[in-house]
């Protein structure tokens, strides 16, 4: 019993058996009360009629939930397996209803069951842990062997004395008044505070994640399940601590000869016939080869020799600006000496380097080297062309430049 009593909540009459309470219910109903209720330890057969209750809307809710389940399940299965990622499985059509029936059914039942379960509690306004009726100690019998009928004060017809008389006329027990408890409805501060606190705390991980997302990290990405994603086999250029040099890739054995790509033609491989350099490119010079030469020249030569081959590549320039003593400015490919060199020698220079120019033999294939030779030849020609070299058709356009 709380000290401060609140407003009157209801008048409660107690009964000992089903007949009593049912009769009372009918009487109260006939007296025109609406806001009254019967409390019993088990559902009383036919009491709803005695009280004049309408049937519940629960079934419709359940039906709705069930249908939602059906539709969702069917759609989801089609969308995932048939549409979003079209699974080619056992040579079957991407979507077929039969295979989807079981899960559709299960999901329907699941949602319907949720509807029934939660629907019941919501419609009953449960949970309601605090209720004025509990203030009444006798009321404990309501879940054991007692039967109660309570008319609530909010009922339009409710009039404390009249109602009490009515009830008293129906039961031999004394009718008890039941009061709202005095304490306030509102949440105490500490509850509010702690909920707010929890809410704030919940934002911390979010903040952390956001930070992580927009900052680079020198540490490898977070990763939990790593079956098979770093395997013990050695991928290209991997490390093998066993060897002193730490490399998994092993050097070639001196003097061995590879089975594939076996070529012996010295002119092609070295650019020499005997001692002398060849002057012919040992490949058929096609537009394709020329194109190839052009791109390769752009990749490997321009940095130093410059796009047009005047030795004014960006690297050369930078070296100049840095005043690197050691750096020898690259030769211009249009220098008469260079132009005079046989193709073989240019090839040899590309592959093995000359003076301060490094060797590119290990950076590009034989064919590419020859392609570059071809392109260099063309370049040299272009930079030292006379009007005669230009086809008549084109000459006209020269004038305009």
């Amino acid at each position, binding site marked *: 019993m709380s000290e401060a009593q609140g407003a009157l909540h209801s008048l409660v009459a107690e009964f000992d058996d*089903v*007949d009593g309470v*049912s009769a009372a219910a009918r009487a109260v109903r006939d007296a025109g009360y609406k806001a009254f*209720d*019967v*409390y*019993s*330890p*088990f*559902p*009383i*057969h*036919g*009491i*709803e*009629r*005695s*009280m004049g*209750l309408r049937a*519940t809307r*629960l*079934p419709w809710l*359940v039906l709705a939930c069930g249908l939602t389940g059906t539709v969702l399940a069917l759609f*989801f*299965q089609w969308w*995932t*397996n048939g549409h*979003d*990622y079209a699974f080619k*499985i*056992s040579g079957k059509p991407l979507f077929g209803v039969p*295979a*989807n029936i*079981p*899960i559709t059914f*299960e*999901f329907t*039942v699941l949602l*319907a*069951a*949720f509807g*029934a*379960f939660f*629907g*019941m509690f919501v419609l*009953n306004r*449960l*949970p309601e*842990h*605090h*209720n004025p*009726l509990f203030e009444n100690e006798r*009321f*404990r019998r*309501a*879940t*054991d*062997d007692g039967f109660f009928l309570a008319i609530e004060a909010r009922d339009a017809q409710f009039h404390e004395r009249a109602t009490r008389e009515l009830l008293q006329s129906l039961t031999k027990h004394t009718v008890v008044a039941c009061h709202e408890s005095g304490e306030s409805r509102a949440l105490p501060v500490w509850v509010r505070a702690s909920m707010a606190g929890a809410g704030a705390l919940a934002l911390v991980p979010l903040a952390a994640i956001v930070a992580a997302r927009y900052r680079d990290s020198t540490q490898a990405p977070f990763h939990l*399940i790593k*079956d098979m994603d770093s395997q013990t086999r050695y991928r290209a250029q991997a490390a093998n601590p066993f060897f002193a040099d730490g490399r998994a890739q092993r050097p070639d054995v001196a003097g061995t000869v590879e089975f594939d790509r076996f070529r012996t033609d010295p002119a092609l491989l070295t650019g020499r016939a005997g001692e002398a350099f060849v002057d012919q490119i040992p490949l058929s010079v096609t537009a394709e080869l020329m194109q190839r030469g052009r791109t390769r020249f752009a990749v490997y030569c321009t940095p130093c020799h410059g796009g047009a081959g005047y030795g004014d590549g960006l690297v050369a320039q930078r070296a100049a600006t840095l005043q690197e003593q050691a750096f020898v400015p690259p030769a211009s490919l249009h220098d008469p000496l260079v132009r005079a060199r046989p193709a073989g020698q240019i090839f040899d220079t590309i592959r093995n380097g000359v003076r301060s120019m490094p060797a590119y033999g290990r950076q590009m294939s034989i064919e590419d080297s020859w392609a570059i030779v071809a392109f260099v030849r063309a370049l040299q020609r272009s930079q030292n062309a006379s009007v005669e070299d230009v086809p008549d058709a084109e000459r006209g356009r020269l004038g305009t430049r």
Partner: protein
Amino acid sequence: MTASATTKVRLDEPYHRPLLIEGAEDLASVTNRVCGVVERPKPPRAWYIAITISGSMTLMLGAMVVYLISTGVGVWGNNAPAFWGWDIVNFVFWVGIAHAGTLISAILFLLRQKWRTSINRAAEAMTLFAVCCAGMYPAVHVGRIWVAYWLFPVPNQMQMWPNFRSPLLWDVFAVSTYATVSALFWFMGLVPDLATLRDRATTKLKRVLYGFFALGWRGSARHWQRFERAYLLLAALATPLVLSVHSVVSFDFAVSQVSGWHTTIFPPYFVAGAIFSGFAMVVTVMVPARELFGLKELVTLRHLENMNKVILATGSMVGLAYATEFFIAWYGGNPYERFTFVNRAFGPYAWAYWIMIFCNVVVPQFFWSKRIRTNLWLMVVVAILVNVGMWFERFVIIVTSLARTYLPSSWGYFKPTWVDVCTFAGTIGLFFTLFLLFCRFLPMVAIAEVKTVLPAAHAHKENGHE
């Protein structure tokens, strides 16, 4: 007492509901009886002994699972060709057990079988516990449990989805749905009884605990109205669900290519088997429980006898299914199918097959005799044998079919390891541990429901009805 029960049943008169509760029980005494079990300061010594045993078995289960996951499925006897062994056998076994509960509460409810009221609570609890045991197996039997969540359609960076064509996936959905719905069903029925416990509670703590879960139930007629409707609806939903679950489990086999699995009668056959084993388990557990906690008057011999009748019926169905299988195998003329069945009966696994036949087909027939049907000891023996038999049924179906499939070159023989055995024992321990805890802390009998079948629950004056 046996005599009195029988006389009562015979003396049943039309329009006069047969008494389901013995002795002079009124509302209060029912409450006292059931709540008494929970409220008594100390449970009987037997309870302590039992929970010690089952508890330690549960611990062993934990150890086995850790060993399994840390080392590999290879610690089990599974091999090639028997890629499934005791893991799936036990899974199906437990799922089967799990059928009694919801069946009793749902189907019998729809069929207005009032006698269910005394046993449905315990049976439903068993369902949940059996599902726990069952659900564990598919989880731990996979090779990489740490990615088992891929079974659920969780959006992910791979943009991959599960394959909804796979019976295994149906299974995942069916079993989890079943577990959820059963739990809801069970809890809902529990709420009014929790309220009872709350209102009888002597200590503040109990009052708070029970009170919290009772959700403020106060037996209002308006609540009861919706409650009963919801209960009916859940029952209506659970009934097809029960049937579907074991059908879906049977699809794991029926939909596959394996001869001996690829059979159309599996769904009904499995469901019958499930009910069969489920009831057997309920009998096995309830007989000692009612003795132990003095619930003889609530769980009467009549309840047990009815269950035994169900066992007899389903047992015969299962027997019929075996026969049909064999006939079809022969009649279908598929050499592989035919071989599988001959091999079952007379091959290297004949011993398992005949154990199954004896326990599942022969033994239940004893229940034709009322004397056996109503004799506590005998019925427990039969029930246990039935459970053994049903385990072997799953073993026969799964292992013998796999051991000898299509290519003779890949035929093999399955041998379990000690880990297999201990794991299974562990699940049994888990099941009983949970059940014992349930008996101790929750009302074993649905108080409110039992009260509805008491004479006191019915208005006697004609004008009680309009």
